[in-house]
């Protein structure tokens, strides 16, 4: 509606403007009208499902809203935020999330780079088959992946421990019930979802001009040296993109933690990720006011991390066409 209203306004302006300018302006208005019309689904959705809810989350975070007794809602000031500071579960969930991120992100990059290098190798026979198969696990629904790996990690019948016993390991870990070994297990399950990382790294590697490798070889650079000094710097944009998604992803991490331990956060809160703690407060304990405060802090953390990443970009991300460097 708002878009259509512009037409009479445009007609009213017409006589005041000189002829060529007027045509340009009508064309410009036409462009604006159509452009806004086409993007309007997103604009509306952004307002209704993103912008307004974020503001509303902030508003709810200053209340004790509980969906069971919505009529008892009260403005309680910053009390939810004060409670957060002393809530040991909040600190635990931050610790869990950061621990996981610190293990999973480097491990995923190492494995992703290994896979991308392998399927990029001229020596690999059957390249496209390997690419497809290494990617295929990313298509497995996350709940199915969790269920499968919970079985594989079972101490009695799981293949991981059967394999370790066969190798002579005396007391193979109880992966699902150890506050330490649950993290490597989550990281391994995460490896099944690295298809996108592998493919984007691969595309980045294939975008490196061959002349650069040739020049380096003439200068006597070995394989590792070429990888470190040419490949890695030139694919930093891809690394940056994936790193951003992974860091944010750690704070949204929920599904696997929920599936493996049925949402308990166990063993001993070792899988009480930030997003899981938010879920439990908001939807299990119905503390939606408190949950809103948790959500807003999550939003601020995400904003801050994204800002830091983008700020750091100029220090380590290489953009070939960038004149400023």
């Amino acid at each position: 509606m708002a878009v259509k209203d512009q037409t009479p306004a445009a007609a009213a302006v017409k006589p005041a403007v000189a002829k060529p300018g007027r045509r340009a302006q009508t064309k410009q208005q036409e462009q604006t009208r159509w452009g806004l019309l086409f993007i309007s689904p997103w604009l509306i959705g952004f307002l209704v499902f993103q912008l307004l809810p974020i503001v509303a989350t902030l508003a709810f975070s200053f209340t004790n809203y509980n969906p069971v007794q919505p009529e008892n809602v009260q403005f309680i000031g910053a009390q939810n935020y004060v409670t957060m500071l002393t809530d040991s579960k909040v600190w635990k969930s931050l610790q869990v999330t950061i621990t996981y991120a610190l293990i999973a992100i480097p491990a995923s990059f190492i494995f992703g780079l290994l896979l991308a290098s392998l399927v990029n190798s001229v020596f690999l026979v059957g390249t496209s088959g390997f690419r497809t198969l290494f990617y295929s696990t990313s298509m497995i629904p996350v709940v199915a992946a969790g269920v499968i790996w919970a079985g594989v990690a079972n101490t009695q019948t799981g293949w991981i421990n059967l394999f370790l016993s066969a190798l002579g390991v005396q007391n193979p870990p109880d992966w699902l019930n150890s506050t330490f070994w649950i993290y490597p297990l989550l990281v391994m399950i995460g490896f099944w979802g690295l298809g996108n990382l592998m493919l984007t790294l691969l595309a980045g590697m294939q975008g490196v001009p061959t002349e650069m490798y040739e020049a380096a070889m003439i200068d006597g650079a070995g394989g590792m040296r070429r990888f470190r000094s040419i490949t890695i710097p030139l694919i930093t944009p891809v690394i940056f993109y994936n790193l951003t998604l992974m860091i944010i992803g750690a704070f949204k991490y929920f599904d696997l933690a929920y599936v493996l331990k049925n949402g308990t956060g166990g063993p001993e809160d070792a899988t009480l990720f930030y997003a899981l703690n938010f879920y439990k407060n908001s939807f299990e304990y119905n503390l939606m006011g408190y949950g809103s405060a948790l959500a807003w802090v999550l939003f601020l953390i995400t904003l801050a991390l994204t800002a830091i990443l983008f700020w750091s970009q100029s220090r380590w991300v290489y953009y070939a066409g960038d004149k400023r460097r």
Partner: protein
Amino acid sequence: MTSAATTAGAKSSGLSNKQRNLLSKVMTTGVAFLILLLFLAPLGYMFTTAIKSDTQMSDPDAPPFWPHSKVTFTYEGQELEILQVPTPNGGTQELAALQKTRTQTTFIDPENPEAGQFVWEGNWRTLEPVYERDAQWQNFQQAWNDLNFPLLFRNTLVIAIFGTFGAVASSVFVAYGFARFDFKGKNALFTILIATIVLPIQATLVPTFILFSTIGWTNTFLPLIVPHYFANAYNVFLLRQYFLQIPRDLDEAAAIDGANPLRIFWSVILPQSVPALTAVILFHFFFAWNDFFAPLIYLVSKPELWPLSVGLQKFNALYGRQPNLIQAGALITLALPVVIFFLAQRVFMRGIVFSGVEK
């Protein structure tokens, strides 16, 4: 042996380029194959477990890898367990246990029941049972019924198909708007759109949930479908990149012929964007198939509307004692997306690269 010999030879005599090339190929492919084997091994676990019997799952002495069952022998209407009984000459003989006590066991020879009964002094529990390969294919049938897969599939398909339609239809419009029209604030809006990629769903969830429950949408499919009718950053980004590659001459030619932007969009842009459209359709379909968090939030108390993801998780939580059925359920759940992926891998993987690298 031969490869070790070749390596040793390479050191001493020096290989021709051709031989060195071949060696590198064998090594690289070998390493890749080994990694792939470990990488996909859990699927082997899933499959072999899915066709194991309940007794094998609970029997700690059963062969761990392949589906086996204990061999039995039917004698005068009784089903007898077959055990490996030591013979005086130091070997073992497979005999059917007729009467089992702690100190002595009476056996008969299944090969030759007329030969009568043998008595072996000792605890029968110390004897190894005899196993044979035996796949329980009916586990799939049982998992299919126990998890109520027809219902889970129906729910998942409804959510996925209606959601995909909305996500793709809205995203092509928005992408076209960003790709072909110039208006004030376009770049700023596009930046905001891309920035929503990092926006955590949790940040908007509580008010959205309250809104949906106020208008009576919780415990229906609507919260899982309707929000997708307003485009999303990934789809718009991919489609916009694609539209930008389509030469503008075609639009302009159509415009001179009097086509309005809607018509140009429909008859010039869309027909040329089939690969990008296919990729976006697949992405959203898989997303919906996979989605666990939103259905958990909106449908948890309404089992008859659960999609596969929630159904499988709840079954896993309830029936932890039947891992064979759970693995059969996992296999049924992952089959469709994986098969579609293998059929459409080319367009799919190109789409990933397109949206991931061009950033």
